[in-house]
């Protein structure tokens, strides 16, 4: 903000201080996580500058829970959901953006309804459906309710609508079928939207908890969040050193990815027109 730069007076200092203070509070938790994870258990609640460092907590955490398996499950889950969302949402968005059909506006309103009635609200009934379909305790079962994302359909529809029809006409003249047009014209041009939506989707499902908790029963399907919850359940007595180590282990990939790509992250949001 250019005003800030020019009025580098008391007000600016005050604002900077406030911004930093807030940032400190926001990152404090992560700082503590690093502290507790890298120090012996007796320093988990005591803070001494020269406390000895250790990797023991990571070793214990890694040996107490099958984190590698949880990682794998989460990775598979996030990938399945993302691919399914891209396909389903692209097709539906294309339909809403470029075709006229009877009942379109009602259909669109119904899709938007899912923005409000999200799968979390329907856990009870969806659980029954899943057990009828035999999807309880499967990774597919965790993903199914999220695959047709109203948010994704909405975003892609907005983006597709901004794409000039001339491009489509040109492709049609060259003999492309409608699906080819979609694939060759619309999808490439909507790349930023896919990136932004993909990021939101990945971070959402990487962190999703309630539904996976309900639908999974075993190590082979549990994603990281549920594994962590069981691993750190307060019932068994809280051991913060090991819990923070486990937490850091499980957020590391996402955290690193974010630190590396944070600029692109914000930019893709801008280009996607999520504003």
């Amino acid at each position, binding site marked *: 903000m250019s005003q800030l730069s020019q009025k580098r007076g008391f007000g600016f200092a005050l604002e900077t201080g406030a911004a930093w203070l807030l940032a400190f509070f926001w990152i404090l938790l*992560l700082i503590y996580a690093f502290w507790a994870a890298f120090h012996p258990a007796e320093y988990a609640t005591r803070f001494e500058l020269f406390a000895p460092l250790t990797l023991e907590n990571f070793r214990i955490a890694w040996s107490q829970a099958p984190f590698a398996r949880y990682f794998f499950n989460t990775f598979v889950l996030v990938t399945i959901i993302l691919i399914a969302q891209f396909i389903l949402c692209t097709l539906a968005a294309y339909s809403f953006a470029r075709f*006229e*059909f009877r009942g379109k506006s009602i259909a669109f309103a119904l899709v938007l309804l899912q923005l409000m009635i999200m799968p979390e609200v329907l856990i009870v009934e969806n659980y029954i*459906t899943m057990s009828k379909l035999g999807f309880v305790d499967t990774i597919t079962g965790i993903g199914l309710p999220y695959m047709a994302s109203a948010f994704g359909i909405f975003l892609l529809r907005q983006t597709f609508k901004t794409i000039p029809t001339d491009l489509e006409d040109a492709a049609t003249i060259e003999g492309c079928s409608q699906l080819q047009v979609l694939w060759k014209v619309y999808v490439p041009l909507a790349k930023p939207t896919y990136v932004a939506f993909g990021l939101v989707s990945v971070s959402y499902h990487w*962190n999703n908890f309630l539904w996976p908790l309900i639908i999974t029963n075993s190590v082979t399907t549990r994603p990281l969040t549920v594994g962590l919850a069981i691993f750190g359940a307060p019932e068994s007595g809280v051991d913060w050193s090991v819990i923070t180590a486990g937490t850091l282990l499980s957020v590391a990939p996402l955290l690193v990815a974010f630190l590396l790509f944070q600029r692109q992250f*914000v930019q893709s949001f801008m280009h996607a027109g999520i504003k």
Partner: protein
Amino acid sequence: MTRKMTRYSLKSQATGWLLLMPAAVFLIAFTYYPTIATLAKSFFSQGTALRPSQFVGLENYASLLDDEVFWKVARNNIIYAGITIPISIALALLMAIWVNGRLPLRSLTRISYFTPTILPMIAVANIWLFFYTPEIGLLDQTLRGAGFNGHNWLGDPNTVLGCIIVVTIWKESGFFMIFYLAALQSLPPELEEAAKLEGASRWTYFRRVMFPLLMPTTLFVMINAVINSFKLVDHLFILTKGGPDNSSSLLLYYIYEVAFSFLDQAYASTLTVILLGALAAIAIAQFVFIDKKVHYQ
């Protein structure tokens, strides 16, 4: 292919529906059908091996009116929403303005604000538990260091909901900041220059120019915030389990408890119907609100 040609063509109709079909199947199976099934189930009693389920009309709704826990939880949820939504949106906007300006250490500050978003709630809740724990927790240690008495933050019905709200705001505002940041960066910088030339104060510029221009973002963020205030209950599992005496329980957590701990899916469905009703009411209110804003633009 112009619009006029496609409007009534059978082919367009068919293709449109065909493209929509895959998503529609999923939406029907996991959103519309369960919504209707939930409604239907709320009129039946819970069946067990000893007592089969039977039609009970509005009995579940009658016991809901009698259910003190339900009223408490509903009240909690209203307070929770009423505080988390405005504060996290306001903070998000403030953060966005800060990291969009010439703040020293801007990048680091931005990372700090955003980090909570990518940490799983279920994991950080355990660390928040450390902050709030009496005697040995960070908050109490700090208070004691400063000469105050400690407090049993999560064990006191007067403070526990506040503690939960703080966690939620902490988790959400960085996420909303990203949307504001994207919007701010697309505002033409000339606007601010012009406002300054006319001698408008920063506050006036914000109130008259920036905030109205950010209105679509605010609406979008608000929808998200409203949804989250009904959906975000992960931290309850670790921090309080809704206690003490339901002081921090929220509607969705109560639904989980009734369905999966009391094994009473009928009553859980009844509670879900209430939650759906609340969401529908909010949706309608927002559509009306958005409609007005569309005229404004």
